[in-house]
């Protein structure tokens, strides 16, 4: 970690410092597979740059005794229209082991992009990933049961994409209200 980051760390709140410490461990292990730490006060996060490492990072975060991020609070899909990317944001924390929490971002191609699934690491990711797929259309490699979850199976388009155009009719029912 470079000195600039550490100096910035002095002005961080305690919670962000804890996240930073956790991040440092991940960075030490995976190096350039993860991005720099974003030490914003509301939701400190880092990004996984090497998609193929994402499951390894997840497993490391869950199982390493210093990290123990055993609780995935949330997994949200996001549409980064300007960067032409889709992504997920995972909010992780540790129940019963450490007080730290951190957010991880994983991004993929906007069209036909896919992200490795972490549903084998955190069971809860199963439905969250299905929801992200349902709403944004990125696929999750290795997901056991990747189907739409909230929209009907035969719905066209991915509703939460910024450029989504709602279909005119659905089984003869007029859709736009």
């Amino acid at each position, binding site marked *: 970690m470079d000195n600039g980051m550490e100096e910035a760390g002095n002005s961080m709140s305690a919670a962000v410092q804890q996240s930073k410490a956790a991040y440092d461990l991940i960075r030490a292990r995976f190096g350039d597979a993860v991005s720099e730490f974003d030490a914003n006060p509301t939701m400190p996060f880092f990004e996984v740059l090497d998609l193929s490492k994402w499951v390894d990072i997840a497993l490391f975060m869950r199982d390493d005794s210093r990290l123990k991020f055993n609780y995935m*609070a949330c997994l949200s899909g996001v549409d980064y229209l300007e960067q032409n990317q889709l992504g997920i944001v995972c909010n992780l924390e540790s129940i*019963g082991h450490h007080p730290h929490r951190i957010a991880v971002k994983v991004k993929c191609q906007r069209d036909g992009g896919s992200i490795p699934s972490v549903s084998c690491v955190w069971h809860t990711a199963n439905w969250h990933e299905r929801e992200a797929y349902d709403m944004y259309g990125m696929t999750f490699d290795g997901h056991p049961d990747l189907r739409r979850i909230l929209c009907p199976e035969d719905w066209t388009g991915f509703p939460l994409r910024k450029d989504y155009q709602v279909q005119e009719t659905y089984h003869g029912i007029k859709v736009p209200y």
Partner: protein
Amino acid sequence: MQELGKAELNSTRIIRQDDNRVVIEKDLDTEYMVLSMGPQHPSTHGVLRLECITDGEVVVEAEPYLGYLHRCFEKYCEKVDYPGIVPYTDRMDYLAGMNTELAFCLGVEKLLDIEIPRRVEFIRVIVSELNRIASHLVAIGTYGIDLGAFTPFLFCFRDREHILNLLEWISGARMLYNYIWIGGLSFDVPADFKKRVAEFVTYFKPKTRELQQLLTENEIFVKRTRGVGMMPAEVAINYAWSGPMLRGSGVKWDLRRNDPYSIYPELDFDVPVPDGKLSDIGDSLSRHLVRALEIEESLKIIEQCLDKMPEVEGFNSRSAIPKKIRPKAGEVYARAENPRGEVGFYIVSDGKSTKPLRCKARSSCFVNLAAMKDLSKGQLIPDLVAIIGSIDIVLGEVDR
């Protein structure tokens, strides 16, 4: 049980005897029956559909199908101003509107970085704890119905009615309050509110005891729920269970203590977890007990808040609300302890617009329900009903 699950596909049973011998039984040639439970079914608490593959009365597998009540909450959020989202959060978990509003407002306030008047914080805690009691009453009452006891349900609703009256009195609406606003409250409470809430607490305490005798201690109820739907703590955490569900598995985890918000750090209350005497830790009865105990903790919190709440002359509950709610660019994951667990909002603001770029709602029921497939393996249909009831889903929140 695991071996059984696999072997059942060939209508063969492998039964492990006490002395570790294995007996293989071949059934008559039977077929599985696919039983579609819901979306119109009395005990799926709304429009959940479970597709059960059943072997007689035994559920081999139950797959939940969601989305019948999907109302595009997240899509709406991207089209509506921040204050306009608050009434929609009510409609997510319609049994605990105040708590969900609180979670959302906490998030936007974090992005805005504004200071909330102390009196507002106290009122917020009182109303959300009242709402928590109301929500738990529905949970306990409907659980009774699921198991065939109708009367406790109506007793619960009778008492919930008083809470709804109290909340209607201050906010103007009975269920969909839009009371907690970003940076404040829509109205200050009426002068008599404190007195009336105190009266409610005195009125309600004996009623909890009665409910306990009528339902929780009833031997049939205990027999129906004890040891049903076991969820070990490890697995519960991995499924990201939260709220009474996680505490029912014996994990002492409550966001009001572990990620404190508002004035909860100043208040004295316990986080109830089952002790394993009345129930087996992690079963349906534990979850029910945790809810019953939480009602009492909530009453404690309300009493303390009534004592400590500052009285301010000519108080304006909207004083801290910014003229234009336009947060700086940034993102936040804010959450609060709802009656059903952790409700979180992941809000992304671009700093230019008065509408969020992205607002994801992490719904507690959605996450809790995800474990249904595992929980239902090898259960009887009556137990399946008991398990769904103990998860206490609100479909408005599951489908959003």
